[in-house]
């Protein structure tokens, strides 16, 4: 009879009692997820997340003996989020300690830089949309909002093929306008 894999919570309990293999199994299950969480949810760079993830796991390993049985994954990601927040606060305070030098975080300036990039792109697409003829813009907006070709054809009182060709042309015009395709 095949035995089922231990749950996260079973592994966490064993790890809390010093079972290194159990802790290793948890690390195997969640190492990628923690890095991804730090990058995608906490806005860190991949390198910074990789560094901070090590601290997160050490904190987890150190605190597992005090862990109260519950939802392990939620607890793990809370530890990760708090670590990211602590790191961000330290950076804002400008009190970078030598310990932090070993794992530089996503800088506030890099976040500001990303935000500026996004705003620039948004400004560009807004400008490009404004250049479109009304009927083309309507087709594109309808498509992006999830309408089908048939719905757009009915709304515009045109054949479906006209919708398709307008959409295709609109996309090309936008790509050219936004500099991702040559005329």
């Amino acid at each position, binding site marked *: 009879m095949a035995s089922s894999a231990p749950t996260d919570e079973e592994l966490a309990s064993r790890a809390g009692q010093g079972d290194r293999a159990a*802790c*290793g199994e948890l690390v195997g299950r969640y190492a990628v997820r923690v890095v991804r969480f730090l990058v995608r949810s906490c806005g860190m760079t991949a390198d910074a997340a*990789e560094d901070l993830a090590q601290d997160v796991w050490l904190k987890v390993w*150190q605190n597992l003996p005090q862990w109260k049985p519950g939802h392990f994954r939620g607890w793990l990601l809370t530890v990760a989020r708090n670590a990211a927040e602590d790191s961000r606060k330290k950076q804002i305070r400008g009190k970078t300690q030598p310990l932090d030098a070993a794992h530089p975080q996503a800088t506030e300036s890099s976040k500001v830089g990303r935000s500026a990039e996004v*705003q620039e792109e948004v400004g560009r697409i807004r400008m490009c949309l404004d250049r479109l003829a009304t009927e083309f813009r309507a087709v594109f907006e309808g498509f*992006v*909002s*999830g309408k089908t070709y048939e719905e757009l054809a009915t709304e515009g009182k045109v054949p479906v093929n006209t919708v398709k060709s307008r959409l295709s042309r609109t996309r090309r015009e936008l790509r050219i306008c936004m500099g991702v395709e040559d005329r």
Partner: protein
Amino acid sequence: MTSPVLTIPDDIAALPGWLDHQLLGPDLDLLAAELAVVNRPTSTVPVLADVLGDNAAEVLAGGLGSLPRSALVLLLRHPTLLAELRELVLTEGGPYWDTLVDDDLTAAGHRVAARIRQAIGADPPAIPSGHGLPRWCGYAATIFATAAAVLVVVYLAGGLRQPGPQPAEVATAAWGFTKVQDLPRDAGDTATLTALADLASEWQKKRPETALDLARRLIEFRGGCAAIQIVPLPLSESQARWVRLRCGDWAAEIDSHIRALEDGREVAVVRAAADRTAERIETELRARANLVPRA
């Protein structure tokens, strides 16, 4: 930067899979901003739980393919929901969502796992490679690490088995962390961490002038890190884990200095970089000693 809104698939059947990738991709913020420009969402935003409805569990298990088109349309028309949904997927999503992780994040996660397993003793020591600026060792560094470890083992074995004068080649490695086994066993965490900082500071005692001498000195330094990994440390378990984990990174830095010499970098430049590494190690250890809770 590619405009994600221009990559929305023509085929409505492909929309859920496309949106799955966008949710965990690097440009979700841009997609949401673009959708807000194109769709001009109303101020009344539906609640995510309502949008997912009875399909929430299926979404978390297998992606947005289980959502009816009407729900997908709501997500596109109210892009603030996308960030909320991402958070939900990141925290509660099942294995399906793990298959959508970028290769670089997957690799980073695996490197973290290897280091942590080694640090906590869940795996035999392993030396993963493949980081852009390797924190652990590549091929050449493995050779150096092996050589360094041999030096350490020779020293440690000599210390254990042969009291009295040491052979000359062993004596050359008897500085820094290689003397870790000589530390008092019952000094306590603060004193031991401080003593380790003192050992790290011994790097400054010699100023090698030639590339070969500097390489030799660096190999000895690297060997000290091997000693930290090998011998029982007179520290509490949590402090010992921290030291061993940090030592992995310090070793990688030292390896990078050795490689720099191999690549023909100037001795003075490499020595200055190694000085900074040594200073940082020392500072980290002293800072850690100050953080030890007082009994």
